[in-house]
């Protein structure tokens, strides 16, 4: 039998080679998926590491007790030996020791840490030298950061004290890469704080001071230290260990560390969770592409081998006529094709790894190694086994057909129950997959391949329709004398073998269109989400002393309001309250990035949230504030300690402060002076209140004048007439009652009623109240309604809804936007939210320096481009790219199927056409007819794309964290889609034309012309 099999392979070398190539393709397609998933998994882990919080990358073990003496190398301590025993394999351990204290130098002092940390010298650029071990007769050596040196006023060679221990500066360091996890985020290199002009050098005066091993001090008790060990997660660890394993190892370490009193603290498990989730999403995501590739490979094998088998039908019929048993024919068929299928496994492994390597190099966000492992081999074997099954299935009809059928040159037009069963199975699988996908939840199992299953089902049905229609139209055209086209049509439509080919080409076109559409949609969704979530081309998180400081600093950095805008963002509250975005709204349109999903223009928002204020702000300039008050008569003696006092609230760049005037309020007319040093050069009056312990009788307090200055030449800020202008004021409390006093000495009269609230006051009505806001529709408060929310100062307040938007910058679909200046003016006190500076794309290169010069400390930044790239580096995006690659490969497989089909039936086709030519058929009527499958595939591919798009689009994962807060476009950009679809159809059409030309040339040769 082996000889016969070998003889069959040798006799049909071309077919064996074709089967081998296609089986290699199937095997490689199957192997490429796990190879890519493994490599992308590595890259994802590396990328997650690069963006992880410092505490997610290390486990900190710290000695339970502090010990006397300077921090020193703990290598030879019991602590270290215990740490080494507890540390799971693969973690990098950095040993250290640290003391807290105050460093005092010539120019000043700073609270900092004195730290011994192994390996620090390799990670800094030092002016001077790294500290060395010192003996008893030497001062301990330290190196300080640039900022610390400046604060202390020390240079290399100088001395200063740390916790009263004298030390000598041997070097001034700058971290080579402050983002290196070695620096523990902001723990060693402390971020700058707002308030004083800064520099672009990372860090602050509180940066760690590094010491080498020092000899014991004469009195070790003056300073205490604690040994630490930081266990770092490494790339190798993430590559070689599964996330559940690592999680278990870390939990064990924490358990045992705590038992030892080391207080093992870490959030590494959240990193492991993210990596695991991303890897799972990637594996799920590429299932579609891998499934498509393998399916197409099997289908093309089915088409090619089935076509070739059709040509061998008479030969098989003759063998059966001669008495050869069918089981021997089966054995021969299996043997003949098992050999190429087996050979395909190793070749497929290599091909898959090569394809994955190529793809990984172009798509992955970080370096990754593509390796050949058992998983890859197993998938390759599955691919090859499926190829063998497809080959045998393709021959099943021939091998089981009656002899009389085999002896016919053209197979029966009606394929019978097998084709129908195949269609039913395809449709059933597709229906199950689509139902599963649309039932909600995270897609799994069949749902992962729902698009390709749906495409196949729709394709086989449309192919059936196309064959029937093609045959009918072809016959009609022949009857009408349209010989060329009619003949071309019936040549295809009356050959049942063309049906799977049409389905194959349809699936190839549809899946390319679908995956290209998904990529296009994802790209748009990433862009949209990045635009909305970031809010402006670039958003810088800053530290400022107050909202007022933030506003002032940004306005000074960009006086014309062209490219920078101050903003404060509060987070969503635990109780679900809407987050607040407060912006310097006059700059919103110039700086924020517009997006159609907002449903409103920035100009409209600005108009709504920044109406003219009822009154102008009251600005004070000078360290003394004088308030002229007169009161109705009251008995101060009888009140004892309950005499009312005047409390003035002012707001400056340093924040908001309540100052109580001395002395207490006296009966009659008097001047009350308040010390307000923050009002140099300028501050803003927020409110003035009369505070009493109890309200014992009716009392009227008349505000007659307000002066500001340094005591010598005060300026009248408010006259009695201005006080009496009631639109300038509102009650500082809802129950405060006040009125205007006219006549010769106008004033504002504040009434305190007996038994009423003990505190009453007036606030400057320099902002609308309640605050006008634009609210997102999803929050639900109607236009004109009062919306309760937490203000920028963290206190509950109510806003008036002046407009409703579909979404808002930074907040997405839920939140409200207010004017920052107005919100700050009505804020009582306190700081809430994150301070940001939004920058337009046109911001100058030195904008950060400008902000630093205004005393803003830069804490971090994000950009629309960067956030978009982040989305593009996550598992769903990588899976989408793999799927697009698979679909592109699918197009080539489709073309290969067309060629294989044509090659298999060329002889028959040419023989027939030559016969017709001899009967006078003109040369122009000699056509391949392959345009029909291409044309059908183009049209039905479009239809199938539409069907699977409508049925499965919503189930495709675009974001690692689930749905985007920004509505995802319903349809892709058709122009971009055509960029893929047109070349695909063109490739098929070109293949069809070339194959037709080959047929025509062959017919010409055989016809003698």
């Amino acid at each position, binding site marked *: 039998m082996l000889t016969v099999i070998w003889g069959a392979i040798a006799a049909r070398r071309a077919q064996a080679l074709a089967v081998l190539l296609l089986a290699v393709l199937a095997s490689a397609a199957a192997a490429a998926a796990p190879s890519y998933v493994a490599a992308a998994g590595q890259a994802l882990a590396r990328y997650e590491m690069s963006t992880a919080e410092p505490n997610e990358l290390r486990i900190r073990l710290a000695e339970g007790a502090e010990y006397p003496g300077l921090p020193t190398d703990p290598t030879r301590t019991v602590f270290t030996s215990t740490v080494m025993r507890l540390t799971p394999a693969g973690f990098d351990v950095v040993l250290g020791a640290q003391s807290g204290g105050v460093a005092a130098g010539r120019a000043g002092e700073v609270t900092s840490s004195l730290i011994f940390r192994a390996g620090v010298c390799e990670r800094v650029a030092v002016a001077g030298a790294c500290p060395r071990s010192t003996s008893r007769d030497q001062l301990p050596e330290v190196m300080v950061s640039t900022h610390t040196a400046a604060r202390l006023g020390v240079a290399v060679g100088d001395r200063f004290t740390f916790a009263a221990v004298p030390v000598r500066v041997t070097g001034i360091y700058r971290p080579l890469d402050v983002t290196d996890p070695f620096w523990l985020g902001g723990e060693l290199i402390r971020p700058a704080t707002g308030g004083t002009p800064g520099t672009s050098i990372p860090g602050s005066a509180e940066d760690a001071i590094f010491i080498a091993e020092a000899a014991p001090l004469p009195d070790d008790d003056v300073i205490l230290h604690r040994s630490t060990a930081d266990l770092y997660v490494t790339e190798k660890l993430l590559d070689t260990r599964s996330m559940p394993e690592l999680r278990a190892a870390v939990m064990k370490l924490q358990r045992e560390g705590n038992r030892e009193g080391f207080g093992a603290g870490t959030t590494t498990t959240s990193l492991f969770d993210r990596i695991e989730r991303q890897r799972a999403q990637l594996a799920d995501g590429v299932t579609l592409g891998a499934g498509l590739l393998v399916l197409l490979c099997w289908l093309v094998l089915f088409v090619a081998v089935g076509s070739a088998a059709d040509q061998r039908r008479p030969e098989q019929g003759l063998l059966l006529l001669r008495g050869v048993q069918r089981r021997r024919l089966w054995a021969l068929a299996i043997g003949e094709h098992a050999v190429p299928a087996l050979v395909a496994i190793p070749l497929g492994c290599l091909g898959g790894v090569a394809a994955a390597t190529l793809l990984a190099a172009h798509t992955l966000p970080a370096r990754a190694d593509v390796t050949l492992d058992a998983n890859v081999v197993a998938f390759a074997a599955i691919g090859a086994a499926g190829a063998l099954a497809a080959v045998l299935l393709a021959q099943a009809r021939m091998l089981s057909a009656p002899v009389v059928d085999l002896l*016919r*040159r*053209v197979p029966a*037009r009606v394929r019978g129950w097998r084709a129908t069963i195949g269609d039913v199975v395809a449709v059933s699988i597709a229906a199950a997959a689509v139902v599963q996908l649309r039932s909600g939840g995270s897609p799994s199992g069949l749902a992962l391949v729902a698009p390709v299953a749906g495409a196949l089902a729709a394709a086989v049905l449309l192919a059936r329709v196309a064959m029937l229609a093609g045959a009918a139209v072809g*016959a009609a055209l*022949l*009857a*009408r*004398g349209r*010989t060329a086209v009619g*003949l071309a049509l*019936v*040549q295809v439509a*009356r*050959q049942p073998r063309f049906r799977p080919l049409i389905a194959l080409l349809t699936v190839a076109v549809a899946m390319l269109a679908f995956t290209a559409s998904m990529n296009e949609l994802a790209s748009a969704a990433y862009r949209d989400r990045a635009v909305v979530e970031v809010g402006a081309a670039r958003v810088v998180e800053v530290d400022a002393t107050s909202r007022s400081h933030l506003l002032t600093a940004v306005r000074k950095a960009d006086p014309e309001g062209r490219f920078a805008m101050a903003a404060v963002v509060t987070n969503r509250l635990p109780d679900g309250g809407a987050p607040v975005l407060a912006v310097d709204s006059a700059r919103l349109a110039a700086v924020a990035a517009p997006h159609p999903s907002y449903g409103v223009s920035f100009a409209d928002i600005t108009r709504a949230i920044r109406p003219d204020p009822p009154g102008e702000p009251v600005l004070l300039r000078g360290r003394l504030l004088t308030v002229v008050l007169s009161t109705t008569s009251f008995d101060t003696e009888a009140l004892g300690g309950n005499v009312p006092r005047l409390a003035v609230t002012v707001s400056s760049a340093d924040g908001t402060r309540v100052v109580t005037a001395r002395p207490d309020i006296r009966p009659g007319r008097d001047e009350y002076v308040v010390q307000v040093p923050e009002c140099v050069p300028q501050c803003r009056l927020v409110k003035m209140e009369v505070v009493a312990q109890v309200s014992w009788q009716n009392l009227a307090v008349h505000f007659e004048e307000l002066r500001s200055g340094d005591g010598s030449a005060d300026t009248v800020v408010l006259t009695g007439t201005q006080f009496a202008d009631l639109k300038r004021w509102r009650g500082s409390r809802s129950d405060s009652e006040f009125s205007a006093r006219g006549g010769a000495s106008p004033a504002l009269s504040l009434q305190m009623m007996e038994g009423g609230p003990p505190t009453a006051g007036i606030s400057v009505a320099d902002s609308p109240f309640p605050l006008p806001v634009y609210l997102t529709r999803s929050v639900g408060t109607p236009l004109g309604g009062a919306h309760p929310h937490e203000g920028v100062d963290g206190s509950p307040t109510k806003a008036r809804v002046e407009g409703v938007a579909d979404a808002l910058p930074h907040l997405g679909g839920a939140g409200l936007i207010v004017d920052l200046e107005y919100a700050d003016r009505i804020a009582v006190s306190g700081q809430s939210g994150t301070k940001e500076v939004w920058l337009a794309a046109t911001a100058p290169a030195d904008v950060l320096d400008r902000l630093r010069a205004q005393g803003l400390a830069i804490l971090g930044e994000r950009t629309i481009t960067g956030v978009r790239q982040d989305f593009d580096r996550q598992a769903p995006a990588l899976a989408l790219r793999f799927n697009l690659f698979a679909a592109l490969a699918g197009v080539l497989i489709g073309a290969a199927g067309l060629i294989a089909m044509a090659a298999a039936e060329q002889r028959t086709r040419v023989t*027939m*056409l030559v*016969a*017709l*030519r*001899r*009967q*006078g*058929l*003109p040369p122009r*009527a000699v056509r391949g007819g392959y345009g029909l499958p291409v044309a059908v595939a183009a049209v039905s591919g479009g239809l199938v794309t539409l069907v699977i798009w409508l049925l499965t689009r919503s189930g495709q994962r675009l974001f690692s964290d689930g749905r985007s807060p920004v509505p995802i476009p319903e349809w892709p950009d058709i122009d971009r889609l055509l960029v893929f679809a047109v070349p695909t159809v063109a490739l098929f059409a070109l293949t069809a034309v070339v194959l037709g030309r080959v047929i025509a040339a062959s017919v010409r040769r055989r*016809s*003698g*012309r």
Partner: protein
Amino acid sequence: MLSMHGASVGYGNAPAVLREISLTVRPGRVLALTGSSGAGKTTLINAMAGLLRPRDGTVTVDGQPLRDRDHAVEQRIVLIPQDNGLAPILTAAENLQVALVADGVTPPGARRQTAAMLDLLGLAGQADQLVEELSGGQQQRTAVARGLALRGSVLLADEVTSELDAGNRQRVLELLHGEARRGAAVVFATHDPEVAAACEAELHLVEGRAEIIRD
């Protein structure tokens, strides 16, 4: 009028199958071409049909050298090949219609002639069947029907009765003679001496050489 003068015909570099053949096929007559298997009957018919170019000598139509099969078709030389030359993917009727339309007949005319000719050959019931679904005899009659429908000036029929029953063979022979009576020159390759005897002329091929039995 189709003539051969001293024609030698062969395939590739192999020795010539026919040597020094000279003959003239006249309108209104049926020339029987006889000879044992392998004697060169089909080769001679192919040469007369323009499918084979003679190595030596000439094949002329009305005095013009025959260039190739297309030229032969232009000169209305109709061929009914031994293997029928039917397109298996087409129905019996379509095989006729395609040839007729290619010959310049209008589509309605082609449909009418097809129906009439198939009816003449007893194939009216098989008109819409694929050729592959027809029996060998039905296929042969379909090929004859197509050859007759084309109404050529020369009709070359290569063993077109080999798979026919007696009744149909007689019908086909009568139709071939009818073609001659219409004015066509008919060349009819056959093994059957009785059939040959019924023809006006007979050319017997022996080892590649022609022997005129009757003229």
